[in-house]
């Protein structure tokens, strides 16, 4: 048994079986189990997921929110049994894996991420066909490519018309 396999076996016991489905940029409600004496209660924390890092049992994610004008971030171990649930309430269109730029934003901008309808596949670059693939497609159907240029030209004209109308107004 290789060392890696040993490690996987060990970590396997600590990994949670019910995986939370969320992505960077999602607004989530995290429910954390908190023990107060003998009583257990759930404490919610909602905000934007700005980073996800680490692997295996060490994987964790950071949720950022603004409380009374002050940015608050909490990092949760993904596999901790203390995390009761992670529910996605809003999805957004983001182009990077770490949203640390949100830390520099103040006011409403701190929340403003373009919304993406729920239950839709992510629009990340990995899912787009590669540049090579797109090129091959264009070559295979040159006829289809030609009207596309025309279409864009038509759009330009429309825009021009709209602009002139505005001027008149």
């Amino acid at each position, binding site marked *: *048994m290789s*060392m890696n396999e*040993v*490690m996987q*076996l*060990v*970590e396997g*016991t*600590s990994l949670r079986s019910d995986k939370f489905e969320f992505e960077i940029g999602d607004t989530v409600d995290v429910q954390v*189990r908190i023990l107060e004496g003998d009583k257990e209660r759930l404490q919610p924390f909602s905000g934007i997921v700005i980073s996800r890092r680490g692997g*295996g*049992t*060490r994987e964790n994610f950071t949720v950022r929110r603004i409380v009374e004008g002050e940015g608050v971030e909490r990092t949760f*171990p993904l*596999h*901790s*049994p*203390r995390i009761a649930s992670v529910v996605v309430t809003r999805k957004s269109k983001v182009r990077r894996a770490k949203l640390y730029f949100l830390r520099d934003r103040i006011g409403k901008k701190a929340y403003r991420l373009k919304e993406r309808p729920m239950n839709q596949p992510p629009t990340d670059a990995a899912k787009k066909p590669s540049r090579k693939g797109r090129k091959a497609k264009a070559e295979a159907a040159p006829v289809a490519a030609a009207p596309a240029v025309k279409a864009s030209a038509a759009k330009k004209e429309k825009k021009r018309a709209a602009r002139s109308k505005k001027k008149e107004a």
Partner: protein
Amino acid sequence: MAKMLLGEKVGMTQVFDAAGNCHAVTVIKLGPCHVLQVKTADKHGYDAIQIGYKDKAKKQANQAETGHAAKAGVAPKRFVREVRLASAEDKPLGDEIAAGTELNVSLFEGVKAVDVVGTMKGRGFSGVMKRHGFSGLETGHGVQRKHRAPGSIGPSQFPGHVRKNIRMNGQYGNSRKTSRNIKVYSIDVEQGTMLVEGAVPGYQGSFVLVRETKKRPRGWDKA
């Protein structure tokens, strides 16, 4: 009963216990070890058992090693150490032990803390700050070119020389190191692994020796 086994460090990770607490643990692949020889006071002058871990490739082993292991009916081993016994009755597993007996982690069932011996990571020729945790001198305030220096290393004309055992710079690491009284988190007989809390000397994949500690458990005076 002397409890000692050989193994190798797999690496560190973190695990969660039932209460949801997170523990930083080192995974040690412990055993199986084979007894290569049982030494007795009558014959050898002291009581001990010799154990070996991990088979050596045939071409790596010399004739002496191969012959010695063959007496126990096993392949020559890469990592061989002796377990010193207080008396002949001190043997792990009692009298069942003989050359060729296999020992595994189950030996450590019920053991709360262990000593782990390994070879430290080599740090080369290091200064006193890294090697001994000296504070060094100030970074500014008129200090020039001596920021990481040890400072004074002793008195002047009397005794006229530097006293022995003054801690100075030099080779740091790549030496045998014992971490004592390390808490055992869990053992898994099926996997042949032991999880201990905290760090253990050495690189991942380096050989370690694990034995039951003689120290009192941590925090014994506070409880």
